[in-house]
């Protein structure tokens, strides 16, 4: 699989296929379906400074070729992760990346510092784009100054690979990307969910407890592709593309738009072994087109 082997910053990946945070648990949930260590990386559920209960139900509704979620970063907190979950997944031979979230710069820094100590976690994905928390989250990702400040603060204490996950809910995602690049991010991942809304006309009520929440799934792929395309022209650090990928063709489209690697999100709920199918499908595509390495077609559009 040399054709799919890549390196992003100092991090080596056996292939460019990762599973998106919040859609793959901690990898353990999918072990019954396939060998999750075949993925390029597993990005585990968003972790915050303290345990969070998340938003009240209802948290999910399906919309045309998509779903809207309002989970709101439910997690057991960074200490629980370090003391328990970490020990269940630290033997994975592929990259396990922790998604780090918070409501204040202090919280992001505190979580990043603790994850920095974990030997088998070679990178974090700083989530400055969650639309489902009242304080912080997306707030940091929609303002260039705040985005710079939080990444700058984390960069000072986090020594390994720093990915920053960006929100599409901005006028110019390229401007935000430039700000986090200048603050020292090693790479960016995009896009997080698109802010959306769903209403039950008969009951005349919103379908989600938070009223507005995050849209994901095939419906947002064109937005993700556009964001990757625009940003790839504006920054030098690598982009990990995601948003609506359901198969290898979608993944290839992201590479063509300028992504160095990709993540699969919502489709993990539909087809639990989609990650493996995308890896095999990407290899088949390269063989069929006589391409010697996946990056030979990176950003050629």
């Amino acid at each position, binding site marked *: 699989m040399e054709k799919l082997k890549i390196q992003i910053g100092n991090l080596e990946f056996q292939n460019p296929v990762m599973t998106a945070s*919040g*859609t*793959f*648990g901690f990898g353990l*949930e*999918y072990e*019954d*379906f396939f060998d999750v260590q075949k993925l390029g990386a597993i990005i585990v*559920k968003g972790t915050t400074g303290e345990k969070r*209960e*998340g938003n*009240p*139900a*209802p*948290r*999910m*509704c*399906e919309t*045309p*070729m*998509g*779903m809207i*979620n309002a*989970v709101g970063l*439910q997690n057991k907190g960074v200490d629980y992760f370090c003391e328990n979950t970490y020990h269940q997944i630290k033997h994975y031979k592929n990259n396990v990346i922790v998604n780090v979230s918070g409501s204040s710069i202090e919280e992001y820094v505190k979580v990043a510092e603790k994850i920095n100590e974990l030997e088998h976690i070679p990178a974090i994905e700083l989530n400055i784009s969650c639309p489902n928390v009242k304080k912080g989250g997306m707030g940091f990702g929609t303002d260039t100054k705040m985005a710079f400040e939080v990444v700058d603060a984390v960069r000072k204490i986090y020594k390994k690979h720093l990915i920053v996950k960006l929100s599409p809910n901005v006028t110019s995602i390229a401007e935000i990307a430039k700000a986090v690049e200048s603050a020292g991010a090693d790479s960016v991942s995009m896009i997080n969910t698109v802010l959306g809304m769903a209403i039950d006309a008969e009951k005349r009520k919103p379908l989600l407890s938070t009223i507005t929440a995050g849209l994901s*799934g*095939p419906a947002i792929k064109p937005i993700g592709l556009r964001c990757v395309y625009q940003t790839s022209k504006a920054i030098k650090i690598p982009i990990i593309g995601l948003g609506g990928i359901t198969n290898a063709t979608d993944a290839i489209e992201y590479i063509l738009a300028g992504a160095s690697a990709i993540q699969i999100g*919502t489709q*993990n*709920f*539909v*087809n*639990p*072994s989609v990650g493996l199918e995308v890896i095999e499908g990407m290899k088949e595509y390269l063989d069929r087109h006589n391409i010697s390495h996946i990056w030979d077609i990176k950003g050629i559009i």
Partner: protein
Amino acid sequence: MKHCDNFVVSEKKFLNSSFFKLKLKSKKTLPEINPGQFVEVQVNSDSKVLLRRPISINDVDSQTNEISLIIQTVGQGTKELAKISEGEEVSLIYPLGNGFKLEGESPILVGGGVGIAPLLYLAKQFHAKGIKPNVLLGFRSKDQIIPLEEFEKYSNLYISTQDGSIGEKGLVTENKIFSASHDVIYTCGPTPMMKAISDYSLKNNIKCYASLENKMACGIGACLCCVQNTTEGHKCTCTEGPVFNVKDIIW
């Protein structure tokens, strides 16, 4: 262990104007399946819906490797499933959830609407243990009734309808059998019904388990969309449920 496999539709029949039954045959030997567990089903052909649909298991035949589902056509996903033909394939992730634990000597199983589905397999398991449980099913009217021979085989069956067109008139909680002596109550159905049953069980100090039908995406504890508020915080209906002891549920 969870599986994701294609099943062949070996039988399909409509039970009333909105309920239909699918018998799905596995090519493999079925794993052990507990009553109250569910599957996440996906139409394999071109579909307008994205997510799988969580459907409770109505019956299991380990001799023929068949799983039966009773499905109510509600939205686009179940409408597509209703159009499927015998011989076609569907994909299932199974078996999911905790399921019912068999407890007590004189249980009553109370179901309403499509929530009656998992109670058949539960009644069958009790019957196999030498206990013929009381089963009380609620329907709006006679038109909504589905064939109940299977229930009659494994249980003492009682019916309530809101209009009294068959069985006793009124809600299941008003049926005479409901307040007879039972040591455990199992329920699945509309939330107001389960809540009323929960209130009764807590007041009368009877153990009670409810199977919830929260909106769900992954079915395997990854997305955290289907949570139920409980005395111990949010719990995933898909992995920590769908069956909860009602004393833990915050409705």
